[in-house]
């Protein structure tokens, strides 16, 4: 299965979905004009990925400094897919990464965490300007 790589723009995050390492990375800012359209290939790719028969663990690293409400909705839907995959036997860990000074990103992470049923959802603080 081919990896999915989408380069970041001013209003859309960088997306790297690696089928080999089973590490997914979403980072940057997310307020695309049409969030459903922007994330459709991402959701399709993730659905296809979990259709392959493998139960090796998957790690998802998300670092979003700012995102709009439509992006929040898409993230909820992605977490739903991950939750289902986890229930079906593929362990999934989500690392919600936020800068130590970004209280808003932290609080939003807590809301997402509450919505999740199965997967391990870690809220991870970082200090320097690492991506």
């Amino acid at each position, binding site marked *: 299965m081919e990896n999915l790589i989408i380069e970041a723009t001013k209003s859309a995050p960088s997306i790297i979905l690696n089928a080999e390492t089973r590490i997914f990375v979403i980072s940057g800012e997310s307020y695309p004009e049409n969030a459903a359209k922007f994330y459709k290939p991402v959701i399709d790719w993730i659905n296809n990925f979990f259709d392959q028969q493998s139960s090796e663990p998957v790690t998802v690293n998300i670092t979003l400094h700012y995102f709009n409400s439509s992006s929040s909705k898409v993230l909820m839907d992605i977490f739903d897919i991950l939750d289902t995959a986890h229930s079906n036997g593929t362990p999934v860990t989500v690392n919600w990464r936020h800068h130590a000074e970004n209280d*808003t990103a932290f609080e939003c992470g807590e809301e997402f965490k509450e919505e999740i049923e199965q997967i391990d959802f870690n809220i991870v603080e970082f200090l320097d300007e690492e991506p």
Partner: protein
Amino acid sequence: MSSPDLFEREYETIKKCQELLAQKVFPDKTSAKHYQDLLHHYKKLFSQLRHLVKISDIQQKELSHLNHHLVQLSQYDPLTGVPNRRYFEEELDREWRRHQRLSLPLSLIMIDIDHFKLYNDLYGHSAGDDCLRKVAQTLAVAVNRPSDLVARFGGEEFICVLPQTTYKGACAVGQRILEMIRLLDIPHKDSQVAQHVSISLGIATLPHPTSEHDLQDIVGAADQCLYLAKGSGRNRFESICL
């Protein structure tokens, strides 16, 4: 009594669905199962909605906070904490038009710290900054009506607009400012005027502004008076009623 819930209608819908299931209104097990699944789905989407609304609230609070912060940054002088020149000019323009329309007396005071360069040279820039802060805060206290406004005009210059203030009133404020700065008693050994930091003031009043007048008339007059005060020994005010 419990406080009203934002999602009362959604909870009510779930409750009704559960009641229907409990009353076994469905003729067979398959329909009941379908209904149960739909209810489960509804609950899931409803939970999403609640969290999305919360996330949106968190972000909007942050944006409003940032917006407030940006307004502060654009209106206030970071060193002294008093309004900056940009904000002052907007306010002055507004006041000017109002006073012109209603022909109300308007006064302006231009203020300059005497021998501030010598102060900086002797005590250093950090002490100079402290001095600017103290003078600014004192001016803000001295000019105490809610509509009065003191702003940092630039460097060691401050400006003050006194709406609906007569010539006599403006001179009284000028005298009070001079006195309060004197009482601050910030030592200034190199000042050729006094033992402490002093200021010079230029006061101008336009008792009856009309459409014939220009805002620059009063600004220029206050500036001219400040120049006179500095030329005639500093630590004083000069004034004019236009």
